[in-house]
């Protein structure tokens, strides 16, 4: 379906899930998404209010024990096909919190992660690159 994937490449909608992060990555995500200098809307992205509209899901945080079920529930509410991006070092490996009893991560134990954006927190440029990579994967899946 070449026609559809071409259109899908131009229209990836984003949704952010915070899986217990220190909110550094979330602040950087807000920065990336919203300030004119970085502006992800030129890639056709827009942030969705509801997970049911999303195509690309950005997950931050090390997946704490308490939030795990909620994250998985919301993740399942995102209709297929979808692409998962792990933002920051925490979802990738647990980061500085990795030996704690309260951490269930790394997140790829529970979800299929497509793109990793390491950093503590990653710079907006890195996040945009991650989103751009996710868009390529998303275009193939759509």
């Amino acid at each position, binding site marked *: 379906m070449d026609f559809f994937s071409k259109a899908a490449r131009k229209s990836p909608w984003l949704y952010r*899930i*915070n*899986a*217990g*992060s*220190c*909110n*550094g*990555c*979330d*602040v*950087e995500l*807000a*920065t990336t998404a*919203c*300030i*004119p*200098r970085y502006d992800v809307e030129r890639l056709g992205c827009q942030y969705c*209010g509801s997970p049911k509209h999303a195509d690309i899901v950005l997950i931050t*945080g*090390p997946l*704490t*024990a*308490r*939030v795990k079920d*909620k*994250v998985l529930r*919301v993740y399942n509410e995102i209709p297929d096909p979808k692409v998962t991006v792990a933002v920051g070092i925490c979802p990738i490996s647990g*980061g*500085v*919190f990795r*030996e*704690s*009893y*309260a*951490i269930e991560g790394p997140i790829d134990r529970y979800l299929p992660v497509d793109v990793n954006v390491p950093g*503590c*927190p990653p*710079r907006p440029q890195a996040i945009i690159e991650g989103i751009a990579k996710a868009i390529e994967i998303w275009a193939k899946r759509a």
Partner: protein
Amino acid sequence: MKSFDMPVGPLHLSLEEPMYFRIDVEGEEVAGIEITAGHVHRGIEYLTAKRNIYQNLALIERVCSLCSNSHPQAYCMGLEKIAGIEVPERAQYLRVIADEIKRAASNMFNVAILAHIVGFESLFMHVMEAREIMQDTKETVFGNRMDLAANVIGGVKFDIAEDRIAYVIAQLNKLEPILVKEIIPLYETNSSILSRTRGVGLINRDQCIDYGLMGPVARGSGYAYDVRTAAPYAVYDRLDVEVITYPDGDVWSRAMVRLKEVVEAIRLMRLCLRELPEGPLTAGPLPFIPAGEAITKVEAPRGELIYYLKTDGTDIPARVKWRVPTYMNWDALEVMMVGGRISDIPLIVNSIDPCISCTER
């Protein structure tokens, strides 16, 4: 009137972090609120007892990225108190600069989110763009946009050399007019902002004292408590910090306190850069920390942050415990929200600038 329950959170668009409110609603009016906490509990206090004192500095910095300078600062101050380390004067000044630059960025972020919740995207972007000036400065001076890694036991890790001073001042000169001439007047006069934030989420001075509220929330209700003047640390006693208060105790007052504090932070940074004395950055190489205990407090962007430290002579701390301002502030949500409307919920939550990751660690 029969009520119903509306969930807000744990993963809600307008909440930066997972926080679960079960809100009892009558029509559109909030009748009761129940907060379920613990979603961001990462067991940091447990981890501090697993790692040594020096490693903990990196961990403590990541309790929360928005107050990521206040935590290490209080932690270092505690250890310095236990070990009796005298921090060099230049490091004291630099600590104030790191503290204020974080305060400026954090407060502006909160105020920007307010505009976002009101649905005023242009203003949101404008404030975020202005905040980006501070982010650039942080990246240039400290090498990171969020976690500065500025503090080390006995001093600071970074330096602002003579040529960098000019750069930082130039950045401040860029930010200040935008703030004073554009952003603050907008928040003071724009009817979109005023009609949504004036008289919303009220809490009065007495209730502030009853609930032990901290930071801009208390100051927005006219209670002039600020650790920087009440119990000065670093070199705040020489800087003559102005404590900004607003009398009304609504969402708007808290936002205005935050904005004015950014202006004050810029003034303090200027002052520090001008008076920056020569001297070493640290008291020496990695110090030995003897057994002992200490309590320190600093003024984080959200209010008073208290650290309790206990060491036993080994390099693993016996206990690290802290109390953050949000811990008291979010209890007061009950007072602020009851009687409010559904539309006010995210505004009121945002107005205490909740730092869940600090509180639940």
